[in-house]
């Protein structure tokens, strides 16, 4: 005959006591829940602010950087232009002015007009670039002329 199966009931232990939680436990749980919700809201608010800041960074900073980059490029072109101008002035003392100076004056006129109408960096940059190229060309011509003179 098979041995009867053991169980709590067989051991007369089936009547286990029940327990009531402490009376104030719900108040504690509610307080913790409120605290967590406040933290969550604060975290969400923080994440929202961070998202706005990130968006602002994406939208504004690159433009600012771009503007700064263009300003730096313009300053470099102006400095380069002054150097070329000085070089050309030094050379032109020993060589006659070439016809190309007409082109230089035309570029300078366009630049002046651009400044007068408050042109943007995007308009100014190619004009300064053009002025420098004309100056390089003039310097090259002047240098050739100086060499010819020395010969």
């Amino acid at each position, binding site marked *: 005959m098979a041995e009867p199966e053991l169980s709590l*009931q*067989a*051991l007369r232990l089936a009547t286990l006591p029940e*327990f009531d*939680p402490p009376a104030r436990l719900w108040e504690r*749980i509610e307080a913790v829940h409120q605290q967590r919700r406040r933290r969550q809201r604060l975290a969400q608010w923080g994440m929202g602010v961070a998202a706005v800041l990130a968006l602002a960074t994406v939208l504004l900073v690159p433009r600012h950087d771009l503007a700064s980059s263009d300003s730096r490029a313009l300053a470099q072109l102006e400095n380069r232009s002054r150097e070329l101008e000085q070089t050309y002035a030094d050379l032109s003392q020993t060589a006659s002015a070439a016809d190309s100076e007409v082109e230089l004056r035309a570029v300078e006129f366009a630049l002046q007009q651009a400044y007068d109408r408050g042109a943007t960096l995007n308009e100014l940059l190619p004009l300064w670039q053009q002025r420098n190229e004309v100056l390089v060309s003039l310097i090259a011509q002047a240098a050739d002329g100086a060499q010819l003179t020395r010969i």
Partner: protein
Amino acid sequence: MNMNPTEARSGFAQEVDALTLARARRGDVSAHAALYKLYARPCYTLAMRVLGSSATAEDVVQEVFLKLMDAIRQYRGDAPFGAWLKRLTVNAAIDQLRSQRHIDLEDPERLFANAVDTGALVAADAHDVMGLLQRLPPRARLILVLHEVEGYTHKELAELFGQTESYSKSILSRSLRRLQEWLTPNTSAVELQPWPSRS
């Protein structure tokens, strides 16, 4: 601590009305309080039986109801609400045992080898059912309570512990024999009755 002997089945079988559930899903605090009023006792009782400590059982109830308030939107009503809440309670109790490193031993042999064998009890102790339960290894106590009191099948226990069905059967059998030994000083006095087995 209030101890009231009642029927073996816990109050997780109580039903909750659809309106309270709907309000609770919307985050209505009074509905949460109503659910607590209905289920706090079975939740606390289960935690006490498994963990044996009022402070730890309070922590379990707190975690369960905090989880309930956050997760009730995900309750789809596939199973009775009480069953869903019981599952939350069992999981929280297991987490507590894990945090106390009481549930590490998985081998049934080693589980009971480490349990203190204090020999047979005197007659007065035999009436202290909770005292007897607490003398079992925590994992064995958990399996015993879930199977014998909360009606978990061995298949459900196997899924819960990630083990085979024979694993919980082995631990349950050893637990009951250990209880029998403690109750019967000369291993002869216990009257055993057949009990339908849940597979």
